[in-house]
């Protein structure tokens, strides 16, 4: 009995079979596709093609028609070379993932899939994750496909299983490789849909006082962002047809501001995060210095994109375990 079970175990848990049934453990890119990880099976269209050849062959047998035989054999031969060609579409591709820009929840996440290839051009290479797929022709030595994924939850996510596949040249075979990528991406909380101005009073109530943009000195013109005060819009430029621009003013000394978790009391958790997220963005856009106070984390007052990202990341990861639970 033990012998049988070990044999079975050996078969079932041999490396390639385990890989086939359970998938590979997540890999760090770049991953080079080789014959150990490319699978190939006929497509439905391929099975149909086979059926057509079979009927043709039976006809050739019955009529003893050598040219019909020849045609059947030509199509068989062509199918076989197609199989190899389909497999070669994927062979020696080297896959890595470029920098995934964090997005706010609800926005479309763009995953740049960087594919290095050798030799010939590869056609109709498909990269897909679940039902989302993108098809592209690859030029050597390097090409990038952008896979657009919807985001529904904030937090740090595993990119998980991508599949790279091809049906080229005749669509008779489907060659694919499952790519369990050890790649993470960050999704910030959703941006509050309500305009900032509606919440002005809460802004002003904060201890350090949050004035909106400075009003004293004209500092320059920047392109309009939603949320800019209408009175700051550079109407003259707009009238000239130059588009919407906002006049920027700065106060003599830089505003410093604490954005506090406590200030968003009364809202549900996700809403609170969204509100803070919106405030952070407004503060950054106004060129202010700001800090973030969360229940267990405090980020000191600073400014700049790096700082903003740090703050947003804290929001994104806040109580993420509960989120996933």
């Amino acid at each position: 009995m033990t012998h049988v079970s070990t044999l079975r175990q050996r078969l079932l848990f041999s490396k390639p079979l385990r890989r086939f049934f359970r998938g590979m453990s997540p890999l760090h890119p770049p991953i080079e596709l080789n014959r150990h990880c490319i699978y190939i099976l006929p497509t439905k269209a391929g099975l149909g093609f086979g059926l057509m050849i079979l009927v043709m062959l039976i006809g050739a047998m019955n009529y003893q028609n050598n040219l019909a035989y020849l045609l059947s054999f030509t199509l068989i031969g062509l199918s076989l070379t197609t199989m190899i060609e389909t497999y070669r579409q994927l062979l020696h591709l080297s896959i890595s993932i470029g920098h995934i820009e964090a997005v706010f929840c609800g926005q479309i996440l763009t995953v740049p899939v960087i594919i290095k290839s050798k030799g010939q051009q590869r056609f109709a290479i498909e990269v897909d994750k679940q039902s989302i797929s993108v098809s592209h022709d690859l030029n050597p030595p390097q090409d990038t496909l952008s896979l657009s994924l919807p985001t529904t939850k904030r937090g740090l996510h595993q990119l998980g299983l991508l599949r790279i596949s091809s049906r080229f040249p005749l669509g008779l075979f489907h060659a694919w490789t499952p790519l369990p990528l050890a790649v993470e991406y960050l999704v910030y909380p959703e941006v509050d849909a309500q305009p900032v101005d509606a919440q002005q009073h809460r802004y002003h109530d904060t201890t350090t006082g949050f004035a909106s943009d400075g009003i004293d000195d004209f500092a320059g013109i920047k392109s309009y962002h939603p949320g800019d005060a209408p009175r700051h819009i550079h109407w003259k430029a707009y009238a000239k047809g130059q588009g919407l621009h906002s006049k920027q003013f700065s106060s003599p000394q830089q505003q410093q501001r604490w954005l506090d978790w406590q200030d968003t009391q009364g809202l549900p958790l996700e809403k609170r995060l969204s509100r803070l997220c919106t405030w952070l963005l407004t503060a950054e856009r106004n060129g202010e210095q700001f800090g973030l106070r969360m229940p267990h984390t405090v980020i000191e007052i600073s400014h700049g994109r790096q700082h903003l990202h740090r703050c947003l990341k804290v929001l994104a990861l806040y109580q993420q375990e509960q989120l996933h639970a």
Partner: protein
Amino acid sequence: MPSLGQRISAAQGSLLLACTLVIMPFFIHLPIWIGIVSLGFILWRALYDFGYHTLPNKWLRLLLVFLSLAGIIVQYKTPLGRQPGASMVIMLMCLKLLELHDSRDERVVLYLGFFIVAVGFLFNQSLWMGLYLVTVTFILSLSLMLLSHQAAREINSFTLIRPHARRLGRMSLQALPIILLLFVFFPRLSSPLWGLPQDAYSASTGLSDSMSPGDINQLSQNHNVAFRAQFEAAPPPANQLYWRAAVLNRYDGWQWLPAHPRHVPLDSRTLVPLSPVLNYSIMMEPQPRNWLFVLDRAMGQPSFGTLDSLDQLRAPESIKQTTRYRLQAVLQYRDTSTPPDKTDLLLPSNTAPRAVTLAHEWRAQSHRTSDIVNRALAYFRDEKFYYTLQPPLLFDDPVDEFLFETRKGYCEHYASAFTVLMRAAGIPARVVIGYQGGEYNTVDNYFVVRQSDAHAWSEVWYPQRGWQRVDPTAVIPLNRVERNPVQLRLRPTAQQQAQQSFLQKWTSSSRFYLDALNYRWKRWVIGYNQKRQASLYDDFRWDRLGPNSLSILMLVLFSLAVAAILIPWSSLRRPPRDPVNKLYRRFCQKMARLGIPCQAWEGAEEYAQRILHQRPELARPVRRITWLYQHLRYARLSNQHNLLELEDLVNNL
């Protein structure tokens, strides 16, 4: 005016082209309306693709399907058979073009297209059809490729056609060994899987099984190939080639009817060859009878069919496909083992009274068969007999009218009259129909015998030598012969051959090449069957290669297979040539020509120093080349621009 490529995608364009080409060859085989309607459907789809028209909705489509199928059934009275079947597949393909949910529909159209190509081979298996359909198959496959490529399904994708066609060509070449192996070794059946419909094979013409005045004349304008014959050794001259098809010995006063073979045991046959035995093979075109053609007398056992007591070779059934068989022949012989019976002397009463009288006169002068035969031949030669393909009509008694009144006729008249004369003189005689001569193809060394070479002659029984051939037509002097291939061949003159102009020679030689090609096509591709497959191994003379050659061959193949598995191919593969290295080596060669060869131990920098020391005037290019070489090679400065600069510098040095 936007070009085609700006209006439709490559995939659409090739699909329309493929469909049109697929149905083209059927136009001559199917009723005209089927061709027009199917072309109309394709045009509809084309109009849709170009944005001029919408496609029919589901109900209209169903109606069209119903009408087309009904039309076909009304036309043929049956949905079964070769022609109705072909019509239906064609209609379905073209109607499927009007349905357009997703790419699956287009795929189905292409699959049907492949199938129609195969159906086309049931109508015509000629070399030209084969070549045409190979092209069509290629375009169908190309459409399939374009269909599977997203980029080719968009406007302005015609540029993709060329690289994809090249790719498909390469794939087809790769598939070639598989195709050939399958073709040669895929087991063939000796009989159909199930009964074939009546019209399974194309119609064919040939000799009729009786002979009345005018029968062979009908064939004289028919230049279809009847068969081809190839001799293993030097062939006999064409005027000695009498291909026997059937013996006719029953005469009813108007027409000659086939003889009934008797049972003569094989071991009692005593054919004594008086001339060398000729080995040859015949490739027969399809014909409505089970007759196989034999050169004069057959020796031994032919590879196909059975010989009867009248030395006729008969196949088990009518010849539906090109058939090849081998046999031996002897042109001069003695064989008294099949004596004549009373049918060979029988003349209906009151037939040809004047001929009978004439024969009795000859008989009275000599009893020797050869004397009477010569007397008759002299009669045809010396009296004003003419050979013509437009003889006057004969009414009551064809033999008497021909012999004593019209005296104009062709082989049938002569053979018939001669045989009647012999019988009247008490000599057993019979008529033989078949073909005479053939056109010798000097390219591939075989004879092409056409329907227009049909001929009739006589056989006369000599007590000592048995049945011997006598051709009364052959004695008509040339000045009394109208131009006719058979007649001209029977008496070729040196003068005639010299008169052939250069153009005539050229056209005839190109005709020979074409026919030789056709012959090989028929012999090796169309005529390849279960029998040839079985004899494939036997045909190859292993003994020629010496003893144990087969085992040695197996051993070699086996070791090659093992080697192919064991040799680490990837390590044998040569690394790709570095273009930088290549250019630098060319630079070194140029310098070596100036007397400064690069030493093996020398680095690029040292070498440059040495060159500058000897040829300071080259300082600029040499410095730059060395710098570029070092940076391109070692500093990962991989820029196409730099590489081009290096190439320019080296070339201009």
